[in-house]
């Protein structure tokens, strides 16, 4: 588009648009006025002048309006920043810390970083805003198609056609439109990709604008040198963004559980602080009042007030139980696990060069908890590569199913120069019939060559390529081409085809489009001889309803053929035609035009018109197109079924086709004796369903058709008793209804997988939506959470990635709660010895660095690398999947167990050192029970105990894990000795008062013996408990681990690449730890880093 050359007959035009965004009437917007005038610029711009209030073209890259002004900046920006929960929480803590009476930790440790992050974020926001502040922009047309929906004005092609490919939407279109000057009004932004409503007023005359005249964002021009358009919707208002951006923000069940737990923890924190506050009040009355000589208070003793202050002091100290930072850590872990999905070679499909993609990074662990899968059939279970296989013409069936070793039977098409060499057919008699000039057969293929929306591309003479919206259509047009009816080219008004070597041009009078409701498509053409014909192809039931009574006999034979085809799993269409007379056509076309330009009820009026003309059709025959199963589908379904995942197939196909596919993918087996078919739309469905419910056995597999409101529950109850459920003839909306039904009543985690636009609603409705990037465009992928190219990758996504993600997340949560609770509880016990004065047990620096440096790396290593069994065992033993479905690894119960464990550990970690140090001295008689030595001892015991716990939890020790664990421990000692050194004390005297503590304390045998004892007492019960469980009640995991020796992987990898990822991970990690440790500046860096990725 950048290399636009002005068309010879037209100088480069400018289109100044003055935007008046006032809603014109209820649902239409005045978009702008279009003027055409001639000037001699060489570059072509659509010249947009924006009204300041306009939002139509704002909010995206090029055209923006500013958000703040000089005065509103500071208050607004700060307000926005403190709306983030974490910032607000830290602000509250900070305010508490600023009150000297309360402050139990140094105030500057919070205030400086918080100010820093606020400033940095504010600067970033301000600079963004300065960039954004603009009122007048030139918008190069080349950018338009990537930013906006355009109304097509004119193009380089004759008749101002534009050929576009909409890989990201659904199929190929021809667009047409031209108009000189006028005023455009259209509907407000909406998400319907296939609809556009508007009017153009030129010289007082009003024309209708529809979908054919709009270039949607994201499409690419084909065979078109240039075009001009008027921006209708820009940025987030475009139809693509509207339809893909309105996804509900999905949350996992663990998220929900965490929210509940956090609330509980807040309550728990309040309870702990209250206990300590009451303790303080009692202490003040009994002890503090007499200690006043040594520690005078300005206001004397006031137990109540003191208790109040103590409450808040302990809120500061014990705030580590409320895992605000947990959310961020969880997101980081999910992000890491999402990258593994993106990186997985075993989910990469080389044929289309498509790797798997985790489009949502927040749902990983839910992949390990799926109970129901809802699958589309076409394109999901099957390849959606269609081959024309059989047909029935005038009551006779041709073609046979392909068998191996049957190559001699393929038909020779060399007589036809334009034939597609890849086309294979197995019945020579049909060719003979056509070449003999059988009228019915010729009409049959003429219909196939004329009635479609395929775009041809003929780069060199005789080399034809078809761009088809759906693979079915492509297959049918290709079949016609090989049988001598070659579709060559089309204009909006005509179609040129070669009929048995002769070029014939048909006038195209009307196209009666296909849609999901009509399920048929018709064209009305005038042959060169002046004959008017309507050709119609569509679903057999639909076409049968509109047949002329004279076709009754043919209908019967064709029906038997159709049933036979469907039984083979083929997709069928019925073909029919009708001769029209000129007068009627004239009248119909007039009414058609009127309906077309109508603003209101256009759809309905058109439908009526179509209905009117598509009747009394003459049946020609039927086609059968084969859609092969994808590789590995039966095996995948079998494995998923073994994992106790119920698979429901929801398809728009006929029952027979679906049933056949069901058998082909092992969903239905011969041993399933009872196959129930519940028919839709019958009054007695209720009774039949309840009858079935009584007789259903485990081996049954009903296919339910009923989805009426009052039958929902019956249907669900019946369906859930069955091993296999196949729903046929369901519309996209019904697909979503089925998903909602199961989601709502079964409280189970659902996954929907599909490839086409008709699966979008289902994908969005399910907990997890998976898009197959296949033949049918990208719409399913765009609205999905995960996408890949082949159905069989679902097994790996769930059984390997899902399982691991769930396991890792649960291990992480359990350990994270354990380590923070243990840490905090020790403070709680110490309160009983320090007069509830909110004195910390540990050094302030240890408190700062505990989450920051000492424990974060190992737990991150565990939650990114851990595997209980390797991927091969994971997929070979689908039973391993069940713990996730049953929520075994992390639940409220597990959380309570975690807290009890923490409580035990903290008791050991406080009282053993307390008793061991009581009244003792160093080996040279000097002090060792001083506060600083005790703090060092307590924190060392704690750190070693939680590290041992982590080691017990880690099942997969890579070099990275080893490095993280040992590195963190060494870092602890290195940092401790550094901070307690002479130099640090002499430079920052009041910041590092622990000088010499490490040297004087850690050289004492009794200190180390204490550490050893606490470690043994913390670890042994865990080991014994787990060992007992394995011996008495081994889980499936234990069995798999015990039976299969874990094989080590040694693979070649490029060292430099590996190191790079590693560094990136450490970088992310460092940000993560900075975040968790109340150093808010990292949040900013993290945000910007991720922003960078998004932009990238």
């Amino acid at each position: 588009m950048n290399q636009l050359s002005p068309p010879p007959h037209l100088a480069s035009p400018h289109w100044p648009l003055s935007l008046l965004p006032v809603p014109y009437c209820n649902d239409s917007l005045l978009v702008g006025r279009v003027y055409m005038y001639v000037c001699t610029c060489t570059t072509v711009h659509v010249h947009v002048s924006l009204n300041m209030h306009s939002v139509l073209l704002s909010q995206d890259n090029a055209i923006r309006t500013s958000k703040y002004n000089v005065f509103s900046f500071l208050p607004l920006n700060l307000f926005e920043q403190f709306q983030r929960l974490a910032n607000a929480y830290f602000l509250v803590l900070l305010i508490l810390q600023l009150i000297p009476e309360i402050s139990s930790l140094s105030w500057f440790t919070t205030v400086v970083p918080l100010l820093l992050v606020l400033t940095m974020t504010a600067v970033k926001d301000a600079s963004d805003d300065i960039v954004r502040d603009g009122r007048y922009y030139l918008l190069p047309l080349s950018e338009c198609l990537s930013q906006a929906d355009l109304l097509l004005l004119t193009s380089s092609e004759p008749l101002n056609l534009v050929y576009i490919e909409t890989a990201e939407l659904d199929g190929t279109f021809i667009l047409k439109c031209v108009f000189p000057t006028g005023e455009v009004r259209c509907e407000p932004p909406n998400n319907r990709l296939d609809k556009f409503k508007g009017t153009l007023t030129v010289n007082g005359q009003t024309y209708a604008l529809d979908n054919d005249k709009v270039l949607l964002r994201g499409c690419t021009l084909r065979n078109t040198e240039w075009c001009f358009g008027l921006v209708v919707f820009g940025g987030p208002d475009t139809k693509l963004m509207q339809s893909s951006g309105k996804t509900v923000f999905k949350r996992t069940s663990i998220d929900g559980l965490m929210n509940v737990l956090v609330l509980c923890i807040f309550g728990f924190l309040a309870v702990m602080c209250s206990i300590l506050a009451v303790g303080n009040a009692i202490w003040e009355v009994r002890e503090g009042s007499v200690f006043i000589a040594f520690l005078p208070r300005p206001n004397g003793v006031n137990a109540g007030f003191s208790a109040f202050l103590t409450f808040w002091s302990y809120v500061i100290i014990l705030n580590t139980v409320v895992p605000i930072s947990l959310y961020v850590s969880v997101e980081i872990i999910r992000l890491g696990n999402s990258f593994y999905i993106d990186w997985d070679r075993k989910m990469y499909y080389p044929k289309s060069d498509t790797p798997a993609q985790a489009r949502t990074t927040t749902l990983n662990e839910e992949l390990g908890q799926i109970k129901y899968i809802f699958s589309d059939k076409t394109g999901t279970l099957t390849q959606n590569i269609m081959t024309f296989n059989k047909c029935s013409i005038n009551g006779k069936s041709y073609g046979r199913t392909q068998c191996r070793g049957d190559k001699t039977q393929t038909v020779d098409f060399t007589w036809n120069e334009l034939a597609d060499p890849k086309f294979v057919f197995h019945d020579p008699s049909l060719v003979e019939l056509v070449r003999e000039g059988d009228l019915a057969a010729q009409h049959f293929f003429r219909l196939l060559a004329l009635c479609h929306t395929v775009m041809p591309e003929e780069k060199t003479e005789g080399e034809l390529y078809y761009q088809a919206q759906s693979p079915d259509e492509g297959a049918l047009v290709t079949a016609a081409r090989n049988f001598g009816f070659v579709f060559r080219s089309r204009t909006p008004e005509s179609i040129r085809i070669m009929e048995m070597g002769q070029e014939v041009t048909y006038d195209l009078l009307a196209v009666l489009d296909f849609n999901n409701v009509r399920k048929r498509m018709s064209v009305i053409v005038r042959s060169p001889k002046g004959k008017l014909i309507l050709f119609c192809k569509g679903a057999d039931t639909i076409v049968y309803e509109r047949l002329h009574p004279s076709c009754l006999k043919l209908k019967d034979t064709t029906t038997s053929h159709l049933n036979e085809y469907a039984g083979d799993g083929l997709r069928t269409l019925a073909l029919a035609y009708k001769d029209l007379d000129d007068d009627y056509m004239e009248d119909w076309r007039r009414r058609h035009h009127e309906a077309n330009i109508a603003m209101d009820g256009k759809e309905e009026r058109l439908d009526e018109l179509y209905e009117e003309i598509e009747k009394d059709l003459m049946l020609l025959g039927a086609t059968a197109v084969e859609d092969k199963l994808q590789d590995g589908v039966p095996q995948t379904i079998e494995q998923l079924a073994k994992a106790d995942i119920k698979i429901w197939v929801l398809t728009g196909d006929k029952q027979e086709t679906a049933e056949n596919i069901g058998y082909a993918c092992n969903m239905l087996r011969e041993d399933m004796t009872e196959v129930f078919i519940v028919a839709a739309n019958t009054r007695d469905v209720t009774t039949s369903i309840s009858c079935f419910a009584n007789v259903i056995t485990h081996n049954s597999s009903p296919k339910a058709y009923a989805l009426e409101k009052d039958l929902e529950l019956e249907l669900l109850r019946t369906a859930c008793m069955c091993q296999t459920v196949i729903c046929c003839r369901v519309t996209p909306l019904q697909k979503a209804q089925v998903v909602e039904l199961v989601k709502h009543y079964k409280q189970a985690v659902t996954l929907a997988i599909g490839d086409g636009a008709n699966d979008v609603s289902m994908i969005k409705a399910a907990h997890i939506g998976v898009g197959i990037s296949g033949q049918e465009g990208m719409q399913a992928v765009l609205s999905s959470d995960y996408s890949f190219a082949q159905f069989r990758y679902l097994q790996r996504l769930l059984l390997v990635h899902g399982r691991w993600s769930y396991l890792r997340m649960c291990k992480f949560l359990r350990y994270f709660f354990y380590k923070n609770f243990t840490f905090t509880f020790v403070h709680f016990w110490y309160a009983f010895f320090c007069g509830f004065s909110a004195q910390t047990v540990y050094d302030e620096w240890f408190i700062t660095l505990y989450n920051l440096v000492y424990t974060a790396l190992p737990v991150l290593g565990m939650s990114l690398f851990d595997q209980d069994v390797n991927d091969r065992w994971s997929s070979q033993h689908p039973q391993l999947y069940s713990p996730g479905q049953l929520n075994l690894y992390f639940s409220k119960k597990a959380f309570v167990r975690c807290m009890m464990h923490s409580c035990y550990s903290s008791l050991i970690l406080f009282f053993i050192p307390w008793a061991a140090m009581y009244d003792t001295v160093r080996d040279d008689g000097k002090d060792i029970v001083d506060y600083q030595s005790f703090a060092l001892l307590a924190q060392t015991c704690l750190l070693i105990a939680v590290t041992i716990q982590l080691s017990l939890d880690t099942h997969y020790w890579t070099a990275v894990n080893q490095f993280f664990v040992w590195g963190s421990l060494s870092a602890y000692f290195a940092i401790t000795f550094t901070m307690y050194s002479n130099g640090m004390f002499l430079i920052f005297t009041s910041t590092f008062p622990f000088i010499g503590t490490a040297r004087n304390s850690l050289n004492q045998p009794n200190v180390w013996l204490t550490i050893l004892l606490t470690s043994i007492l913390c670890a042994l019960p865990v080991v014994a408990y787990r060992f007992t469980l394995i011996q008495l009640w081994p889980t499936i995991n234990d069995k798999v681990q015990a039976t299969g020796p874990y094989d080590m992987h040694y693979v070649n990898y490029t060292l430099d690449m590996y190191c790079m990822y590693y560094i990136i991970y450490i970088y992310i990690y460092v940000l993560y730890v900075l975040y968790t440790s109340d150093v808010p500046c990292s949040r900013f860096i993290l945000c910007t880093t991720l922003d960078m990725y998004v932009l990238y």
Partner: protein
Amino acid sequence: MQGLLGKPLGRVHWSNKAAKTGPLAHRPDNSAFMQQRLPAWSPMLTTSTVLPFMYCMAVLCLVVGVSLLITVQGTQEMKLDYTEAGTCNNCFQSLKNVSNAGKSCSCRVVFTLEHEFKGDVFFYYGLQNFHQNLRKYMDSRDDAQMVGRKQNLKNPSSYCEPYIRDEKDVPIAPCGAVANSMFNDSFALQYQGQPGDPINTVPLYRKGIAWYTDENVKFRNPPKNKSQTLAQVFEGTTSPPYWQKPVYLLDPLDATNNGFINEDLIVWMREAAFPNFKKLYGVLVRTQEPFTNGLPAGNYSIDIVYNFPVQYFKGRKQVVLSTVTWFGGQNRFLPIAYLVTSGLVFIIAIFLTVIWWKFGKDAKNMNE
């Protein structure tokens, strides 16, 4: 944050993959890291590891416990609560009257050592129910002043509240509640083998009782030129209100033991972690008879200058005589805890063995 991360990230290029072209341009790299096949060690809780480990632990704890117990039995300790003992009761009663707070009171307590204390003997004073670990109390000190910063000598840190300056706005040195409440009883130990024997003063070495790092790094006197005396250095400051002597006269016998580097002060300033604690007062000098082998058995008396009031906070005062070993003082908790742990581990180990024997041995549960 979540909104940000919840956004689809699109395809992230970690490497220069974008530069790749060809049919497999988007194929992920086959690195062990990306394919989650890093070589790894997967330890499992199997019978062959857990059971031997348990028995080893039991034995280890037993050995440690027994050897510690033997060690601790070798230490000797004598505690004497002198709060109201002997003539000190008078002082105790007199201090109850607030008007006598500043007055010195001397008293004497006597005790008998049944057995000889062999080796180095350490003399401690102990306090009970004195909360040196209260947050406000602990914070009320200025390390910068005590490390000899001239600036902080005259301008103590605000942390020293409420003992920064006296009523006349003279800065207090050393400032803060910790220093103000310094223990100020003094002891003189006498030995009389049998009644009638000559009384020997037990020589106590009153230096080297604090941590080396405290004496040499953490506490320094403010810098002075050669002509100045310590008193001149501290000019313009006043001593804490409860003190009877200024900081530069704490030790009348040793001029180098005055000011902030006075070892009693240093020992006091290392706040105890718990309300009951003891602090080193002196070490027996074993150069002269009869103390070359330690403290002989016999009668002892302690002359006490009884200044420190404990009745305010229901506290008790002790003197403690103790010998030490490599394991420190006489604390029997760890040896006993190790022995108990050993027993526990042993019981658990037997329990696990039984479980393994009955259920796990034939992998009955494993083969379902």
